[in-house]
């Protein structure tokens, strides 16, 4: 429930903020425009594609919020047997962060008008994202090899389903990223690419955020009490020292 409520609250806040700027208290029946003088429509200065992506991210957010709520509810029903989170996931998380960074770098270069920098960034982001997906697959294989099958416990099921869902979204993003990268290497002027690169970057950061939340919760589900989770975090921090 927490995630759904949180998500609904965020969306409601955005909608209320937006509505508050729309002159909902105006009296349109009294407002007749003069010839040649019309009020602004209140449309955003952002391009439609960016707003479209924003709305799409809200839908994706809703999807994940619901899945994660279901995850937390199901965790409490008694037959939850935590599974060991494969170590490779930490490595994968690093790859995804690097992929996001690379794309951000491509965006910075595209804004500067540096096509070569943008090309490199795009390619690096794509390769890193593919490596992430391959890493996720390795994690699946490891779990499968050690007997943690999809249907044998809800903890396993949620692990596979959540990682698959996230992976599929990333794969969908790869299509857009791939097209942009191909265009960039064909030498399409960087000004024409800037929008695509920015859209990819926003999507990538969003998926990184989702992944961090999902990963955190998977760790939680792997060791079902929060105290253990915190202990785990501190041990990681200590280990890093």
């Amino acid at each position, binding site marked *: 429930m927490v995630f759904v409520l949180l998500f609904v609250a965020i969306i409601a806040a955005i909608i209320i903020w937006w509505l508050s700027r729309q*002159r909902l208290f105006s009296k349109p029946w009294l407002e007749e425009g003069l010839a040649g003088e019309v009020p602004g429509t209140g449309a955003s200065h952002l391009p439609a594609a960016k707003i479209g992506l924003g709305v799409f991210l809200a839908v994706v957010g809703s*999807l994940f919020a619901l899945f994660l709520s*279901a995850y937390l509810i199901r965790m409490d029903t008694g037959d939850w047997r935590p599974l060991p989170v494969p170590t490779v996931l930490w490595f994968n998380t690093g790859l995804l962060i690097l992929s996001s960074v690379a794309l951000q770098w491509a965006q910075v270069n595209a804004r500067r008008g540096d096509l070569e920098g943008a090309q490199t960034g795009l390619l690096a982001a794509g390769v890193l994202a593919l490596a992430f997906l391959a890493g996720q697959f390795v994690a699946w294989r490891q779990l499968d090899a050690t007997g943690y099958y999809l249907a044998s416990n809800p903890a396993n099921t949620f692990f596979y389903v959540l990682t698959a869902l996230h992976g599929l979204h990333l794969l969908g993003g790869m299509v857009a990223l791939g097209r942009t990268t191909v265009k960039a290497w064909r030498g399409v002027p960087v000004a024409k690419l800037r929008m695509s690169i920015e859209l990819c970057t926003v999507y990538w950061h969003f998926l990184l955020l989702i992944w961090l939340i999902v990963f955190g919760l998977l760790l939680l589900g792997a060791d079902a009490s929060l105290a253990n989770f915190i202990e785990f975090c501190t041990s990681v921090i200590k280990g890093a020292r």
Partner: protein
Amino acid sequence: MADVALGKENYVPPPAEVEDVELPHAHSWWTRYVFCQDAKVIAIQYSLTAIAIGLVALVLSWLMRLQLGFPGVFSFIDSSQYLQFITMHGMIMVIYLLTALFLGGFGNYLIPLMLGARDMVFPFVNMLSYWIYLLAVLVLAASFFLPEGPTGAGWTLYPPQAILNGTPGQGGGIILMLASLALFIIGFTMGGLNYVVTVLQGRCRGMTLMRMPLTVWGIFTATVLALLAFPALFVGAVMLLLDRLLGTSFFMPTLISMGEQLKYGGGSPILFQHLFWFFGHPEVYIVALPAFGVVSDLIATHARKNIFGYRMMVWAIVIIGALSFVVLAHHMYVSGMNPYFGYFFATTTLIIAVPTAIKVYNWVLTLWRGNIHLTLPMLFSLAFIVTFVNGGLTGLFLGNVSVDVPLSDTMFVVAHFHMVMGVAPIMVIFGAIYHWYPKITGHMLNETLGKIHFWITFLGAYAIFFPMHYVGLMGIPRRYFDVSDMNFVPPSAHDLNAFITVMALIVGVAQIIFLFNLAWSLRYGKEAGGNPWRATTLEWQTPETPPGHGNWGKELPVVYRWAYDYSVPGAKEDFIPQNVPPAAVRAA
């Protein structure tokens, strides 16, 4: 009249010219009529597909009624088929007909035209949306051709029974149903992005949000609801599909079936109910809000009067949309949840009556001393108001826990939701088709045929659903195949059931008149001209009728006023279109 009154600090001067978009023009027959990116063509494709699958659902309701009215007479209906008919009838009507027709059909046709846009903002994605919807419909229809038929799990698809042995269609039917729902949601999301972003960014100069016709407000808010609510159904469908296909236990508790312990264990069926109704209740308003919007425009136009309380109408739409997310558990009073939960949800449910009542009062007050023309759209609008009030009142009964518990799972509930989200929105759909058909085709629909269609449909619907309330109050359960040998059912109930069935058959057949009218008028209908109803909204001001690709010829319209300038004192006509500058009115 006041000149444009704007808050000075947040006034953004509009660009001198709205940037023109490059439209993907059709070059061949295929891209003009089939793989077309023009929202108007997509709208017609959506509508025809929705109506076609809706007719299948209509026939299913006949078969159900034949069994209920004359149990044992029709040997070709057995109990499993009966459950399959119920399930498919419900699911098709709610999702594949009503949702698709209101948002995919009317949304696509009206949003760009009413807002003075050339097309939706992402035409390609919009086209994809229709083709995925068609695929979803085909996958669903394919389940009729499986050896054991479609699923008979009931339209709510509650686990565990939805995927257990013994439920009809457990083999393939349920799989196709869930897959089809997932496809529908993917397709809808593509369309929904278009509707929302077009309303946000695609409006022509001068079209502020508060100048939009209420039709657009209704469709816009409903789309936002749908985009946020459909993922819940998607999540539920995917998880149920995994339970069925891979033997996971998201929703499946430990079960013994036919003396055998199943492999499932520990899942929560209630979790599915929460997910389903997180989608299911907003779904009611996904259907109702566009209907509210459309009917407001029909009433204003055909009563030649500005809509009463435009601002209130907009606020009410938004508030109803927001509240629809916090009433979900009133569908679950009998699921064994904490009674305090019930009180909370009963309260929120009853609060929705406030904005809804505001809307009803405003429709009535718009009619008050209006110049009411009893045209077909007006007749259907009046029928809508009456029906919606009726259905809404029984909603007050069912919203209360203590009244709902005894009435739950009786025919009373069936009568209630058919009135409020079956008959009422369908009335609006008919009214809207009679209203906009002239713009879509250039011909008027035949008035006489329309009146016959209206009276049979309207009176017939009441003859069906009024007695059904009574049958429900007697305690006759819904979803039961045969109640003929139950002791508590008096003979009068059987007579009523037979009567309801006969009326259902008549109303169903009467729709042939409507379909005939649609086809006949395409060729032989009276020439409509550009603006037969003398309406103010932009779609009636297009240079061509039906509008061409790009809608507006060379120049986009500019909006100078709100959408409801009817019978303005001192104007030469009793309506002033939104794109007429004040100077032109005064000069007259």
